[in-house]
């Protein structure tokens, strides 16, 4: 395998970043959330990018993961690390159940069906009070700090865990993209009847992708629960806060490529925070308005996402090197 310069520099920079930020500060929290959302958008990218099935219901899996590990910890004292695996299994199962009826849908119909599924999950968690605590939410109980218990005094370990999660999910995405499954998903995306006729079991491949994507998203839910310490159904199953934001990050960054979701997350999450910081005291809703205008401008400027800018920049650099 040949040495790739750009990704190595990027990883190194990301690995050093948490050390430079105030460990009790605000920006390390923003960084951690950014890394987490980049990982979520990358997991979404497996289905949304490779098969072009735009899911607006990924909060369902995220919430399942957050609740699974926290409920297991609260009721049975099980370590969140194990809870994360259980949540991943549950998330994968949920993805399979929802994908069986929805994966034959395309375009807007698939988006709407997954949106509805996310909402159903939010309502269930709100109503199932005995298990989830209902609308009042859940607090992750305090346990003595330690890696095995997934409990830390400072935010720095959370930032590194989120970084590792992003690297793992990105590696999974890249492996799928280059594998037979990646070729098949791209074929399905571009021409379904042609894909079928040349021997691709389209239903099966889409289900596999959905399960992997759902399971990874659920595992990231545990990371969020441990970071946030408190959450309620409307947060982790939120349409705007989770489902649409994940899709938006991938779309703004560039769908179907490994760098896209990372670029998207590092643009959207800090920008959102910055807008809130600068404008929320001026007038109600102003920060959201400006944020929205910026997003519209970006998507008009680069309809295929930041990757196109990134790719042309890289091409220009390598041309200069070749000279």
């Amino acid at each position, binding site marked *: 395998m040949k040495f790739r310069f750009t990704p190595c520099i990027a990883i190194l920079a990301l690995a050093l970043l948490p050390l430079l930020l105030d460990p009790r500060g605000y920006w390390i929290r923003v960084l951690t959330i950014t890394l987490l959302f980049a990982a979520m958008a990358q997991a979404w990218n497996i289905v949304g990018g490779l098969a072009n099935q735009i899911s607006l219901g990924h909060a369902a899996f995220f919430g399942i993961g957050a609740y699974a590990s926290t409920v297991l910890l609260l009721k049975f004292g099980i370590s969140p690390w194990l809870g994360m695996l259980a949540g991943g299994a549950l998330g994968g199962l949920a993805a399979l159940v929802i994908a069986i009826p929805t994966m034959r849908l395309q375009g807007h119909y698939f988006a709407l069906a997954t949106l509805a599924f996310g909402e159903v999950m939010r309502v269930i968690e709100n109503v199932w009070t005995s298990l989830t605590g209902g609308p009042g939410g859940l607090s992750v109980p305090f346990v003595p700090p330690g890696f095995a218990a997934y409990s830390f005094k400072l935010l720095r370990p959370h930032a590194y865990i989120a970084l590792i999660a992003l690297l793992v999910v990105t590696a999974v995405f890249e492996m799928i993209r280059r594998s037979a499954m990646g*070729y098949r998903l791209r*074929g399905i995306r*571009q021409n379904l009847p*042609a894909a079928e*006729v*040349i021997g691709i079991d389209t239903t099966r491949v889409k289900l596999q992708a959905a399960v992997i994507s759902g399971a990874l998203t659920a595992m990231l839910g545990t990371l969020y629960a441990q970071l946030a310490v408190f959450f309620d159904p409307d947060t982790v199953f939120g349409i705007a806060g989770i489902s649409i934001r994940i899709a938006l990050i991938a779309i703004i960054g560039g769908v179907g490529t490994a760098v896209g979701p990372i670029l998207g997350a590092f643009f959207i999450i800090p920008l959102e925070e910055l807008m809130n910081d600068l404008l929320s005291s001026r007038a109600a809703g102003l920060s959201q308005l400006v944020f929205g205008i910026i997003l519209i401008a970006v998507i008009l400027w680069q309809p295929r996402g930041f990757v196109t800018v990134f790719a042309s920049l890289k091409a220009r650099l390598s041309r200069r090197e070749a000279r």
Partner: protein
Amino acid sequence: MTILEVRSLSRRFGGLQALSEVTFSVRPREIVGVIGPNGAGKTTLFSTLVGLIRPDTGSVALDGRDLAGLKPHKVAAIGMTKTFQNVALFAESSVLDNVLTAGLLRHDVDRAREQALNCLDRVGLREVAGKLAGDLSFPERARVELARALCTAPKVLLLDEVMAALNHAEMTEIMQLIRSLRDDGVTLLVVEHHMRAIMNICDRILVLNFGRLLAEGTPDRVARDPQVIEAYLGRSAEALRR
């Protein structure tokens, strides 16, 4: 000895009887032409054979295996695939990736890539392997689709108007390719509007009209069949000899 056995195949779309009791069989290594006026059911026949369309009644057997209810990917695995009339490529993928994806039916990615390059050699497109399929000319795209179908290693290959929009030289090349495929043991069914080409390469011709099998036989016999001339051409036999 038959490789493809089609019995009483019927399919109705709303008020249109697209296929009506179509029965025929094909021997291994045969090149069979399927002709008929527009809307005669040629493309519907191909789509039904590969499992994209479910027949209302009737059966298809490939190499002795009943294909009833099988999805297209299963039919491809047993050994029959088709090309599309209007060319259905993965336009945003490279030519090589288009063909490679088909090779994955029987091989891993690395072997599939080798096979894909062989198939591209075969249709004379190896030099454009790295180009995006959508950037090619129409005749080239038709050849990519042919290479992609070949890469599934079919026993029976259904070609739906692969010679549309080709010039004389290109058509001659494709006809040679079709013959060489037969020499390799592939059985071919060919839908084509270009009469001279079809009369030239086919061992046998099926004539469809309004979803029915109107006539069947050697090119000569079909060309002289008064029923065919009447129904299909509606003019004179001159058109067939042109």
